[in-house]
């Protein structure tokens, strides 16, 4: 894709998001002039950029939206929800088109018909205003149809006939480019083939060979002897941009069906060498003088307009412009000291002289040499001022590049960890404690730098929570309308930062929670009023940083969860025993909604509650290494709290071995490590347990659960790793503890993707692959083995 289009697509994304957000805010604060202005400007900027490309429907639709917004901005219209719907629909359609443009570099074929209805709708509220606004044609000038040049003969006639027939069915045109690279272009690092391949929306590409190739002995492979014929739907702006470095080697014509047909019927073409060059020069002459006259006209207006102030820098700039225009017209004047009145006289005189026969302009190169440079023009400070950068810049970087950087940091960490093994080897294998210490010192330095680098890269990956919250104003608006509920959405702490992976992964659980709230939690306005509440419900999305974690809370002031009903339901579904029905506390009862197979809504609605419910939320949050809890006060509301690690990129794992092989588990889960004398282990039913500070902790023999040989001697102390899973303490009997390491956890892929008992793998410094256990699954496994 050419860089101009890529830039447009990237920018469009931001602008459309601004429009959407602004429109939604406007519904809450109708008529806020600042907001209207913001939305208008985003739409306006978008339209301006779209005009650079051959996307007429896009420009037309945006233009209609912009006119509507302009009327709102000018106070001629008041934005109502119908108009907002139409505007949102228009920008949704545009978003869809841009997705198509991203892959195909053109609008979908249906764009015209899709847009027509919306344009009519958008224009409707404008009433009489529609006509003049539409007549402005969005600043897209009608194309100038050229005469078919003789090089068109290089294209095959059959294809041209078909193309002409196709063009006749539309009002569009094609751009034909004739590109003859300089024979020594290779020595200027030009790559003609690469250049023509970059032409967007390419319809046809022809390579033209020289009429006669030189004899083999004279043949120089470093001489470019080819020409290219390129046929494209790309707009002139794009082509000018693409060929900007070789303007003298190309010729572009714009042809419609008629022009091609005339060429096919044998209309005498313009001879490239003679006629065209003459015509082109003539055209340039008249164009330059037209430009010069435009500048003179502007100067005249600037001097004579009511309220014009012609002094100081303004007057000097007008003198400058007049002198430049006069020079271009071939009638130099000296206006350096002219008063405004003298200037007006000069302009009038020049305009009169310029009108009839324009004198050939002096080429630009000569202009600078012909006149002695102005001494004044070389002020101090100019030479040492770099001039390039203006203001602060934000660099937009492809996500993949950042991911790659993160991977490299991970590899650096692995290589760094290798040094500690080397230090051990130096001491143990080569008996050099000094060398070992020096390696360790080196390691310490490298470790510090690697940590800083890692922190810096992680910082780049941080995004504000507003990215995750951004979709909700729209979602809540649409859903609440459908449900006939009035809901005010409040977001707090959008500036809280978290790793982009966390933000991305947060999306689905949040959508689920919000939908649940809207669907089940929040009552209709009538119900609310009957319950003595405010008719409008409040839904809050809040984020707050908490050490290495971020807490996101979705809360509503709806009807809350009825613990009795939940318990009864869980019992009916066989999720809890009769005994639990009696003994479960209120908090435990609320937690039941996270059990697989539980759905509180008696009626499955079309929004949420299709059997996959809160259990899916809990599962996906736990997969991220987070936790989810729900608090509810029956009749007053529900609040669901997600606690997630700020970053998923680096995980701290505790390494231990079982059956001679090393495994890891996330440090977050580890409560403590203890060595228990063999005699203190006891047994309750079939379960091994150990008493710790008066609490009975079940102990699982990992070797057995993982089906590995147990290597512990009969009477030896038992190394036990105490972990906390779902607020339950469990002891894991292992063979030996090792150190904690920071690793980049890679998910299980390929054949191992279904090995649920592992949450991922990590590469250790000595080249060993560490399997990291998924504690929940391992406990399930242990239960099955026992």
């Amino acid at each position, binding site marked *: 894709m050419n860089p101009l289009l890529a830039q447009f697509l990237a920018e469009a994304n931001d602008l459309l998001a601004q429009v959407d957000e602004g429109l939604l805010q406007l519904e809450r604060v109708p008529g806020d002039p600042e907001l209207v202005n913001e939305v208008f400007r985003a739409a306006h900027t978008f339209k301006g*950029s779209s005009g650079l490309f051959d996307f007429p429907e896009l420009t037309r639709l945006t233009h209609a939206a912009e006119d509507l917004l302009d009327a709102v901005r000018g106070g001629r219209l008041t934005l109502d929800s119908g108009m907002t719907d139409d505007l949102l629909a228009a920008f949704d359609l545009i978003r869809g088109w841009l997705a198509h443009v991203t892959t195909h570099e053109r609008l979908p074929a249906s764009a015209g018909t899709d847009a027509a209805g919306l344009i009519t709708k958008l224009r409707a509220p404008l009433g009489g205003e529609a006509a003049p606004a539409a007549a402005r044609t969005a600043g897209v000038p009608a194309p100038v149809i050229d005469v078919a040049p003789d090089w068109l003969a290089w294209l095959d006639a059959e294809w041209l006939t078909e193309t002409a027939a196709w063009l006749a069915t539309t009002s569009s045109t094609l751009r034909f480019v004739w590109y003859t690279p300089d024979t020594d272009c290779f020595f200027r690092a030009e790559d003609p083939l690469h250049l023509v391949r970059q032409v967007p929306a390419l319809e046809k590409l022809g390579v033209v060979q020289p009429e006669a190739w030189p004899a083999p002995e004279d043949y120089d492979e470093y001489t470019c002897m080819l020409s290219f014929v390129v046929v494209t739907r790309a707009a002139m*702006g794009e082509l000018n941009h693409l060929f900007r470095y070789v303007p003298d080697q190309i010729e572009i014509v714009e042809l419609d069906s008629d022009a091609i047909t005339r060429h096919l019927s044998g209309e005498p073409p313009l001879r490239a060498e003679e006629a065209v060059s003459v015509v082109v020069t003539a055209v340039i002459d008249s164009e330059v003088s037209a430009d010069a006259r435009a500048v003179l006209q502007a100067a005249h207006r*600037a001097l004579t307009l009511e309220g014009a102030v012609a002094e100081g*820098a303004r007057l*000097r700039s007008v003198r*400058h412009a007049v002198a430049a225009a006069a020079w271009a017209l071939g009638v130099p004047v000296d206006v350096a000291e002219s008063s405004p009145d003298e200037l007006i006289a000069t302009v009038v005189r020049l305009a009169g002289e310029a009108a009839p026969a324009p004198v050939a302009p002096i080429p*630009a190169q000569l202009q600078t040499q012909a006149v002695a440079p102005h001494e004044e023009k070389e002020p101090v400070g100019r030479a040492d001022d770099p001039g390039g950068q203006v*203001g602060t810049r934000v660099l937009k970087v492809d996500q993949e590049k950042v991911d790659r950087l993160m991977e490299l940091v991970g590899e650096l960490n692995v290589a760094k960890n290798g040094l500690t093994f080397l230090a051990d080897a130096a001491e143990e294998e080569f008996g050099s404690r000094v060398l070992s210490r020096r390696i360790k010192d080196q390691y310490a330095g490298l470790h510090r730098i690697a940590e800083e680098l890692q922190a810096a890269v992680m910082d780049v990956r941080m995004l504000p929570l507003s990215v995750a919250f951004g979709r909700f104003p729209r979602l809540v608006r649409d859903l609440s309308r459908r449900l006939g509920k009035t809901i005010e959405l409040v977001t707090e702490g959008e500036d809280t930062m978290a790793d982009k992976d966390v933000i991305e992964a947060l999306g689905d659980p949040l959508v689920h929670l919000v939908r649940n709230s809207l669907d089940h939690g929040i009552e209709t306005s009538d119900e609310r009023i009957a319950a003595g509440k405010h008719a409008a419900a409040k839904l809050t999305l809040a984020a707050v940083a908490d050490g290495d974690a971020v807490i996101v809370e979705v809360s509503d002031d709806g009807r809350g969860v009825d613990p009795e009903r939940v318990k009864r339901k869980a019992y009916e579904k066989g999720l809890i025993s009769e005994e639990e029905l009696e003994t479960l506390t209120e908090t435990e009862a609320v937690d039941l909604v996270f059990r697989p197979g539980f759905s509180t809504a008696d009626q499955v609605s079309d929004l949420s509650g299709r059997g996959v419910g809160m259990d899916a939320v809990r599962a996906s949050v736990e997969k991220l290494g987070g936790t989810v809890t729900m608090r509810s006060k029956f009749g007053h509301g529900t609040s669901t709290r997600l606690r997630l690690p700020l970053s998923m990129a680096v995980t701290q794992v505790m390494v231990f071995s079982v059956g001679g092989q090393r495994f890891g588990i996330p440090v977050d889960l580890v409560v403590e490590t203890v060595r228990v004398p063999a005699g203190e282990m006891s047994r309750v039913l079939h379960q091994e347990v150990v008493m710790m500070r008066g609490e009975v902790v079940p102990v699982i023999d990992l070797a057995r659960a993982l089906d590995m040989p147990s290597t512990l001697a009969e009477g030896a102390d038992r190394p036990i790793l105490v972990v906390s899973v779902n607020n339950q303490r469990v002891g894991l009997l292992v063979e030996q503890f090792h150190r904690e390491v920071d690793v980049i956890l890679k998910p299980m892929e390929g054949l191992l993707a279904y090995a649920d008992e592992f949450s991922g793998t990590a590469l250790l410094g000595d080249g060993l692959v560490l399997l990291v256990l998924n504690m929940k699954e391992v406990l399930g496994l242990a239960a099955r083995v026992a």
Partner: protein
Amino acid sequence: MTSDTATRARVLVVDDAATVRLYHSSLLTGAGFEVSEAANGLEAVEAALVTDFDLFVVDVNMPKMNGYACVEALRSENVGSAAPVVMISTEDRPGDADRAYLAGANLYLVKPVNGDRLVRVATMLTAEVAA
């Protein structure tokens, strides 16, 4: 334009749309100008305070400081730039051009501007003949 660096004219392209900026600046760079960019009027004025530009190409509708206010500021005593200003806008309602001339612009063009024309006008206005 001559390719000699010492005499290359400096242009400041001012537009809030990054796509339009890229379009204008690549056209002008290709024609041998030394191009800087600014994303709004305020940035443009700040840039003009440290660099003597030979030409400004200014959009009208921009956040923070719009094109008219930007040109007014360029012509004010504080900045005092007498370099030619070409304003480029999507608006072509009657009176828009006059507003630009009152602010101190020397030419008003309507978007999208033909690439050749922009280069021609820039070349004309930066020729070292003017007062």
